[in-house]
């Protein structure tokens, strides 16, 4: 109620007390209605976000296997994490994948968006074609990876063979598993293409007209006008994909992990979230898995902060008046 008094101020104090009361009642009613609409989220936030975050932080200092009560072990989980060679391996794998995936994916989707922007009337058709792979369930993408990148009979190696290239064993050779996953990930580039294309269409045509008058080449126009003008959308694609690739799971898990996988050695595909999942739900080391989750959270926060800082320097947002 103090709010109302402050908002109302001295000028209104002289107001008819009855009207003041009515106004207060209306305000209270308004808040009550708002809270009613917000109640699903507030409830969900408390139960499925706030409590899990707190409890996960607590679990990370315990030893917990679901059956017995958690026992407090202090920093043991975090110490173990430092020494666990699989943590190092999975972090390395995830890092390599991200470093390969994000730039390639961004450049590829930018190239396709630029192409689509030149496609004229047929762009709708091509856009559909580019987007369809994005609809494929990631499990099926994992299956397709095993099929298309099969070292002996896969389509990829057959096509490479046309050019006289002897393709590697993408799905079994430890050195080629991550590159294979990255190439497969480029197939599902569709949504980024659409985001970048939408940004391209918002670039004012006058900029190109005047550039053309000045005799700028296509390449110059792309570098000096297009890329800066859509840098906001490019940055969005980069940041979303970085966060997603830190959490890569389904495609790699489908293709290289699971019960009874005796076929492939899978060290090269052990990504961080896969290891976390194994610890949490296969080995039931829920305390240790919680600690792993917090490390992931911190890593993602740091990388996002770095990217935000970098973007302040390079990204141009229209109407910012810089």
């Amino acid at each position, binding site marked *: 109620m103090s709010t109302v008094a402050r908002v109302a101020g001295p000028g209104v104090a002289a107001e008819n007390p009855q009207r003041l009361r009515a106004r207060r009642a209306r305000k209270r009613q*308004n*808040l009550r209605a*708002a*809270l009613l*609409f917000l109640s*699903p*989220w507030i409830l*969900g*936030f408390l139960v*499925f*976000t706030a409590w*899990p*975050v707190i*409890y*996960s932080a607590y679990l990370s200092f315990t030893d917990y296997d*679901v059956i017995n009560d958690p026992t407090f072990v202090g920093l043991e989980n975090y110490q173990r994490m430092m020494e666990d060679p699989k943590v190092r391996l999975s972090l390395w794998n995830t890092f390599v994948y991200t470093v390969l995936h994000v730039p390639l994916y961004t450049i590829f989707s930018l190239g396709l968006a630029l192409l689509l922007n030149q*496609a004229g009337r047929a762009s709708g058709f091509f856009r559909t*074609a*580019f*987007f*369809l*792979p994005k*609809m*494929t*369930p990631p*499990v099926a993408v994992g299956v397709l990876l*095993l*099929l*298309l990148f099969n070292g*002996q*009979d*896969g*389509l990829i190696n057959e096509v490479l063979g046309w050019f006289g290239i002897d393709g590697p064993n993408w799905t079994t050779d430890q050195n080629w598993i991550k590159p294979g996953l990255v190439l497969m990930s480029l197939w599902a580039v*569709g949504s980024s293409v*659409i985001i*970048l294309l*939408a*940004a391209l*269409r918002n670039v004012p*045509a006058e900029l190109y007209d005047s550039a053309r008058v000045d005799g700028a080449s*296509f390449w110059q126009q792309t570098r000096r006008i297009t890329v800066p003008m859509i840098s906001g*959308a490019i940055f969005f*694609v980069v940041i979303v994909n970085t*966060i997603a690739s830190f*959490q890569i*799971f*389904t495609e790699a*898990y*489908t293709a290289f992990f*699971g019960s*009874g*996988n005796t076929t*492939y050695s899978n060290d090269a595909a052990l990504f961080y979230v896969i290891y976390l999942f194994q610890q*949490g*739900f296969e080995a039931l080391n829920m305390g240790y898995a919680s600690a792993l*989750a*917090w490390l*992931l*959270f911190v890593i*993602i926060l740091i990388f996002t902060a770095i990217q935000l800082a970098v973007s302040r320097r390079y990204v141009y947002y229209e109407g910012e008046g810089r």
Partner: protein
Amino acid sequence: MSSGTLDAGRADASRVAAQAEIEARTPPAAERRPKRPTPVRILVVTLLVVSTIVFIYPFVWLVSASFKPRGEVFDNRLVPQTFTLDNYVQVWQEAPMALWLLNTLIVTVLACVTVTISSALVAWGFAYFRFRGRGVLFGLVLATMMLPGAVTMIPTFLIWNALGMTGTLTPLWAGNLFGSAFYIFLLRQFFLGLPRELFEAARIDGANNWTIFRRIALPLTKPALVVTLLFEFQAAWTDLMRPLIYLRDSSTFTIPRGLKALVDQFGFGGEWHWEIIVTASVITTVPMIILFFLGQRHFVEGIATTGTKG
């Protein structure tokens, strides 16, 4: 996104509506130029066609392989040398495909309907009402989007476990009863794009909060609601992580979880029966392709708006 969000939101709904129109009316820059087959143009068309083949061919390959007998799955022929429907018969016998499809459909429909309703309610709460602390609360909504799922995954499992619901389909969708940050954000932007005078007028005419929301705001937000439904339909249909965590018995599997089980059984488990895995993959994927063609325009517009927001 702090200060610009509100204005951006207002402009958004109209921008999306206008986008389709612009696409229809004004031809892109390339088209206004006289149409001579310049070398650049030939290059552009060639690249477009090549990339289309790259994107589409894996589907064609997969569907074609599902009609080939076991020995020919890998022959990379476009048209099967021996055409057979046996794989479809066999996969139906080896695995409870119909049951898996039904489970997936139940989860998917419940997930997308509940998340659309709850997110719309919450989004309206943030868009229409003005109250103290609204900015902070909405900031909290956005903050939850940054939180990796891995952090909440284990305690969330423990909640469902304590409720005795692990092993059932409930944990796969019931979290959606409470709205989802991304859709709340998306729908709020659309609500903010609606002219406020509309609601004031209705209020003067005696409409209450619920009527304003249900009869005026919701019908005007239909495109965004469809986008939410479609996005969540796809997300729920294709999810593997949660079925892996919550489902043990194969009779409760969703189709992606079932496909993974088939990969384990007919792949890693022994000899590779690729024909079964290929066929199950087709069955898992086809509903998503149909979904895309039903809601293509909404998918494209929905994705385009998520990118122009940030």
